[in-house]
């Protein structure tokens, strides 16, 4: 599928390429509604902290001490403080995919925590994907420090995607030149929703019923 998580992962890789060797961290998290009970603000930010520390050649003494001082289950406040220490000393990109799939109570905890982090870290940047209804939540939480982009995949991207997926078709007997041409002509020219539904249902079955 042409999904937001594909775009998020591309952004992660591109940011990592652009900032290679520049003491910049690129960390990511993918929310998934099916795992909503495990993906709390604490476990999510804990995993970001884990990534950023793991990527360091040398862990600063203050972080090392803070980490060793954690006893028992890490608390959200401990994790946020450590993230503040790190992101205020080096540029950090956080890529968060499908934020709308985080349950609301955890999402608002996360917003509060992210605000605490970016308030102390002028070089921290957050890339978020999600449904539009959380846009107002982000704007409210981060006091307007947000730009947003509405996504409509370009026609070329859709065609390129369709060609690759058609070439991987596991039932080639059901495909002929006419059907393939029909797919490549109609899907990219349709409403984006139609593209998505067609991809979900399976390209052939959508056209053949």
């Amino acid at each position, binding site marked *: 599928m042409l999904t*937001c998580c594909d775009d998020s992962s591309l952004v992660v890789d591109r*940011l990592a390429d652009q900032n290679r060797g520049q003491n910049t961290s690129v960390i990511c998290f993918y929310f998934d509604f099916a795992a909503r009970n495990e993906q709390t603000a604490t476990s999510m930010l804990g*995993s970001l902290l884990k990534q950023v520390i793991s990527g360091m050649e040398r862990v600063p003494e203050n972080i090392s001490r803070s*980490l060793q001082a954690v006893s028992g289950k890490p608390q959200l406040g401990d994790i946020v403080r450590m993230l503040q220490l790190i992101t205020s000393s080096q540029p950090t990109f956080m890529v968060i995919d499908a934020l709308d799939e985080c349950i609301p109570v955890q999402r608002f905890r996360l917003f509060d925590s992210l605000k605490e982090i970016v308030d102390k870290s002028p070089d921290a940047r957050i890339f978020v994907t999600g*449904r539009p209804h959380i846009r107002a939540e982000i704007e409210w939480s981060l006091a307007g420090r947000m730009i947003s982009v509405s*996504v409509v995949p370009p026609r070329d*991207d859709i065609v390129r995607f369709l060609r690759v997926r058609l070439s991987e078709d596991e039932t080639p007997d059901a495909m002929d030149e006419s059907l393939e041409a029909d797919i490549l002509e109609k899907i990219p020219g349709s409403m984006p929703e139609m593209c998505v539904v067609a991809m979900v249902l399976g390209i052939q079955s959508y056209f053949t019923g």
Partner: protein
Amino acid sequence: MTLPLHCQKSGIGFTGCAWLHRNVLGIQKELSYQRCFIGPRFSSTKRHPAFLSLLAISSTDHPILLRCDRVGNKQSKMSQYTIGDSNTNCLNTMNSYNTSNVWNNCTVAEDLSPLLTWLSPLDPGLRHSDIQERRVNNVGEWLMGTKEFSRWSGLSEGGKGDEVVLFYYRNPSVGKTFIR
């Protein structure tokens, strides 16, 4: 009693990950480990220098630290360290490892990786690797060409803008459940 098993390697790739899964999960079985996962693997692609750590929670009474020096080739070598009771030596009979040393407890504190496990059980690196594998080349590149992305990421002439968050959303009528 839960104790860490730790294995780390720099510059590991897919082959190395597979090697670790095969060999270390074998150890896991032998020692009746209750739980084991590899992480963070997010930067462990062939394009990125990586730090890979493998951690497991042991059901034995013996804390064990494994340090993987070279993996995924014929020169694979894993140093093993049994921490604490020097009489334990619970891995010394395994043939796949070349060296065996006994460490004392104070060295555990020097290595933060086992502590990182306690920060979060989640490993988004695995998801990232999966998506990376099935992504179609050159699809989605347009996003990085937008002026919003350049301004947000600091690629534009004026450097980073004041906006902290770049929010990227799809048409309201497109259900994300559907596009999975």
